[in-house]
């Protein structure tokens, strides 16, 4: 194939000896390096130290922080909850996104519906968390109140009880993020020219066949982007959970995820621990999780997108 080896195929008037391009890129790169990359490297380093960050200097302790974490129930709780958001939450979000995208394709009010569904994504997570808490409050919450009002008292639950609370959190996240992923998937679906569906209709394809034969293959690349975005979003999710527990009272430990624990252990807490080393170690684990999963997702979804 026409793969360039030593020769450059790019047009010369646009090709530059890095220097000119460098001037365009340097400011963004410098800030990016200073604010994101350098601190990331530093975090890895701090994770090998013990450090309170007030007046003392970091003391190298090797893998001690990691060893400590592996033995901590709190850490494993946070870790498992993060994975639960990622996997269980992900499955639900993507299932709904797909179903909605398919349904919305043929609905007249689709722009309006999409706008409403997307809305939680621009609302401050604090506000969402407040609303979600009001909804799920045990006795005077909106949901239980509603269920009672329509005569479904048997369906009422203590939504925030230890066995349910995290599912309630995930439900909240699903409510927020489904709109986001619907939007992205719809964009992919909208790009598919109508005539593919018309051709499929002429051949008498069922909706399921259309989904698997037309929609999925032709949105594969969008799906892969969406999956990567989900991995990042799921692992990063902090604000909603933090605010769900409220300010002034720490979020209930039964809702902690990795980022919440980083915050609680290293940054702030009602009874602060100031364990910067340990917080960094958790952050490094988050980072590794993101890295491994993104690579994994990309590998799984590597099948090339179809050009059309």
């Amino acid at each position, binding site marked *: 194939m026409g793969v360039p080896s030593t020769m450059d195929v790019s047009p010369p008037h646009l090709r530059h000896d890095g220097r000119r391009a460098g001037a365009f890129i*340097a*400011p963004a790169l*410098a*800030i990016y*390096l*200073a604010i994101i990359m*350098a*601190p990331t*490297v*530093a975090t890895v*380093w*701090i994770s090998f130290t013990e*450090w*309170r*960050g*007030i*007046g*003392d*200097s*970091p*003391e190298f302790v090797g893998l*001690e922080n990691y*060893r*400590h974490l592996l*033995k*901590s*129930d*709190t850490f494993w*709780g946070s870790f498992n909850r993060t994975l639960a958001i990622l996997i269980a939450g992900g499955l639900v979000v993507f299932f709904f996104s797909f179903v909605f995208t398919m349904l919305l394709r043929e609905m007249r009010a689709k722009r309006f519906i999409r706008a409403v569904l997307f809305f939680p994504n621009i609302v401050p997570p604090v506000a969402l968390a407040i609303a979600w*808490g009001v909804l*799920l*409050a*045990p*006795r*005077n919450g909106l949901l239980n109140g509603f269920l009672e009002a329509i005569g479904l008292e048997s369906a009422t639950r*203590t*939504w*925030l*009880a*230890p066995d349910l*609370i995290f599912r309630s959190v995930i439900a909240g996240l699903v409510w927020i993020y489904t709109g986001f992923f619907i939007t992205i998937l719809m964009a992919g679906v909208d790009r598919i020219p109508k005539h593919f569906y018309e051709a499929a209709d002429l051949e008498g394809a069922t909706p399921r066949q259309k989904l698997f034969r037309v929609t999925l293959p032709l949105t594969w690349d969008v799906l892969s982007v969406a999956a990567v975005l989900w991995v990042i979003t799921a692992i990063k999710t902090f604000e909603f959970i933090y605010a769900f*527990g*409220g*300010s*002034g*009272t*720490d979020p*209930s*430990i*039964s809702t902690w995820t990795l980022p919440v624990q980083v915050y*609680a252990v290293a940054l*702030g*807490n*009602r*009874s*602060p*621990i*100031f*364990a910067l080393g*340990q917080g960094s170690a958790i952050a490094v684990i988050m980072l590794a999780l993101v890295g491994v999963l993104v690579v994994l997702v990309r590998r799984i979804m590597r099948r090339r997108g179809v050009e059309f």
Partner: protein
Amino acid sequence: MTRKRDGGRPPWLAFVTALLALVLVAAACGNDDDSDVSPTTEAVSESESDAGDGSAVAPEPEDDGGAVAPEPEDDGDTPEPEGEDGTLRYFSMWNEGEPQQEVLQGIIDSFEEDTGVEVDVLWAGREVLTSVRAALSAGDPVDLIGFEAEPLAGALVNTGETRSLASVLEQQIPGEDVMVGDVIPSSFLDIYAVDGEPHIMPYVVNSSGIHYDGRRLTELGIERPKTWDEFIAASLAAGENAVQHDGLINFYNAYWLYWLIVRHGGPGAFNAAASDPTGEAWRSDAIAGAVEDLVELVESGALAEGYEGSNWPIAQQEWANGNGTFNINGTWLASETASYSSEGFEYRLLPFPTTEGGFESAEVYQIGWVVPQAADSPRAAQDFIAYALNSERLAGMVDVAKNLVPRSDIGVPPDLQDAVDMLAASPAGHRPYDGVQGDYPEYWIEFMLLDDQLFFGQISGEEFIDRIAAKTAEYWDSQ
């Protein structure tokens, strides 16, 4: 606990700092019209003052852009020059709008008027130490911090970040003919003393116990319970939702077991169990008794339905509205629920029920001030402490904020009388959570996790003891 504190800086810091400086210099050179973005402190404070009304912003202490954070002195007793401007930087745990904040604001206003010292106060809320840390790391002065004594002890006092307040005891209280040491009982101060010298000066002394509406108990014809058995019986007699509890706050859940351990094993028993490197201290009879009692409560059905999923402050709200009888809480509950409690609500407090052959002591939950080593104006801070402890001024905490104060010569409203009596009658005092929260904050989290499982009936008493013993040994092993 104290760690060595040399000037050593982590190697990466130079890297990050250099990059940041580079970016700033580049930004400053690149945009002539944007010259405010310069790394010099001058420009920074300029931008601060044109961004704000200026009053709350303290001028930067250093004039060097790459300023090194002022190193705290090792020796807290060395007298230091006052901050040149006579400004007192005060970080407070209260949020704007809370009654305690309003009281303190009043004190601050008159202090400024009387002394000419400007008080720059930050109403930071309960995560005040996060702000303190931010300020200290940035080298901003922090002269006075007001917060709960336990986290102060754990985060600052035990690690040597605070100054001794011994000299404050000999300071005269402005407007009164007494010294601070005369009115603040040393029993309070001794709890957090370092080398015999006080480091935390309390201005509120709360406690905890079981709250109820006096009227309701009378209506129900239930006698005020004294012992644990009586309490369980009373709860069962009180009908639905007898014990309201906000189970989503882990440290409210911990009230029960901690109190039961302290009752069964005496003050310090919980702390001793937590700090036993082998974890075997958890297998004592006292703790077994405490766990057994807790399981009894959980299994009795006295706890309001859904307590494990109650998001604070819902349970206490319902309790105050008359749906429920008992609520275990701090003595601040009266002030927290005042705005929505049902009419004619009669706030009563039950000291935590006693157990057979057990101990009696009261929780001393102090809220106080510390003066950090890094303070710029430690003298002004001490002056403020003495000034605020004046009985008339402190009375606001009682009358308006409905909190107890360390001075016994200030009268209390009826809502708080039970608490005062409880503290007075108690033969001994102990720290909140027996000091476990303050002394071992990381361990505390792991403890609460297991305690929740026990309190929610997810594990049996035996399982709990086995697990917490193992956890304790593991924790100390990794320290």
